[in-house]
């Protein structure tokens, strides 16, 4: 008896003794039809599944145009205390799209970040760097304090207590026609170096900046 495995070595179906094989045929018609039906089904399923998936995950990769909001004249803000300002981060959804920003003039004797055109005014985000609750500036303690889990930050927004993993976020500011404008958000590490905006709870010191990658759609200015 011949070795049955030896028979399968030929690429021709007729050599493999498959019933109904044509001469010169390498794939049986049944196998071709099965593969074709599977392929057609996969194409039909992807035709609705892939657009739906892209539709759902699309907003992750969409970059919004920078929005600058005028908040007041240049002499309305002291350089040793914060003035709360309400700005709109998401238009069209009412109160839910607004956030409070603490604003003061840059003070060369306090601020340690490198001065440039975007930080002549310091705009501190109230979004806690722990999990995003709204912090408030407590004047008597000279601290930002978070009501949710007890995060505490100093005058520059650096963490001095509680669970936050990095300093408070900031906003770019600029002066146009003697008016202060607040622009997009950015995050800072513990040395107040700028990073593209990260979500709360994501450290950006050391390995953190690689563990929590930046958004492809949001870059530093």
């Amino acid at each position, binding site marked *: 008896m011949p070795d049955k495995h030896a028979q399968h070595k030929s690429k021709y179906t007729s050599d493999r003794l498959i019933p109904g094989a044509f001469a010169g045929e390498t794939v049986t018609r049944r196998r071709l039809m099965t593969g074709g039906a599977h392929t057609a089904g996969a194409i039909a399923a992807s035709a609705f599944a892939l657009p739906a998936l892209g539709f*759902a*995950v699309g*907003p*992750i990769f*969409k970059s*919004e145009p920078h929005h600058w909001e005028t908040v007041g004249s240049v002499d309305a803000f002291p350089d040793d205390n914060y003035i709360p300002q309400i700005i709109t*981060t*998401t238009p*069209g*959804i*009412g109160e*839910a*799209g607004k956030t409070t920003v603490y604003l003061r003039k840059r003070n060369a004797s306090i601020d340690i970040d490198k001065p440039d055109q975007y930080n002549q005014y310091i705009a501190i985000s109230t979004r806690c760097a722990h*999990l*995003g*609750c*709204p912090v408030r500036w407590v004047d008597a303690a000279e601290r930002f304090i978070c009501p*949710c889990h007890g995060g505490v930050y100093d005058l520059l927004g650096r963490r001095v207590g509680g669970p936050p993993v990095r300093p408070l976020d900031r906003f770019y500011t600029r002066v146009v026609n003697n008016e202060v404008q607040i622009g997009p958000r950015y995050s800072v590490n513990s040395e107040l170096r700028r990073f593209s*905006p*990260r*979500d*709360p*709870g*994501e450290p950006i010191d050391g390995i953190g900046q690689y*563990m*929590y*990658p930046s*958004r492809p*759609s*949001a870059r530093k200015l």
Partner: protein
Amino acid sequence: MPKLPKLPAPPIPAPLRAPPPRPGDGNGNGGPIEQGKEAGITVVDWVDERTMLSGSMRWLLFRKVPKGNWFYTLGSATLFAFLSQAVTGVFLAMYYRPDPSGGAYESIRYVTNDVFLGQFVRGMHKWGSSVMVILIFLHMARTFFFGAYKYPRELNWVIGVVLLILTMVMSFTGYLLPFDQRAYWATIVGVNINGTGPLLGPYLSDFLRAGPEFGATTLSRFYAIHMLLVPGAIAALIGAHLYLVTKLGVTAPPWSKVEPNPELNSRQA
């Protein structure tokens, strides 16, 4: 010997006589109740003849179960909590508007204060969600302490864990829908907790929010996940869960002292 002519049989006393056939038994000549019964049986027979569902129903409902206790009812209690959530949720959806600029809160206020039985139905849904989570954990504890997760029921445990996670997703997404201060900030914190997962976390929280900030479509996204995506998955997985329970049978409690079949023992030896 010539046959004697038969005497007529004496009348049988009334109590010993067989009862006459009742009207409607088999001939359909009875009153409207009998006819209604016949019609019902006819309809069920018609469906069963074409679907053979009665066999499946017998397989599902009339199976042998070990002598258990009340802890064995926790699974069906969870199922009924889910059904209650589904029914009340469908009717709440008739009034709810996922509009973040005030409409969502207003529609919930309207349901609670103005709709007839609205506060009751919303209360069923709101408190029922907690009841469902509690029942799931009790059911899970029963399965664990009775050893009902062991071979061959591991896959059913895995399906149950997925159902637990999906129920948590329901609780999380449903929490935002009233869109009051508590809902908003709880969702901010919850989404940011998702974001603390390394590497994929930031993308997950962006997916949940539909962008880097809480935006115009975050609420409708949560609403769609809450009422379309996850309930469908839960219903399908409950079907798989119940199929495996029926297929594999219910575990006997660990204290059960049923003697094993000696024939099986001898065959093993």
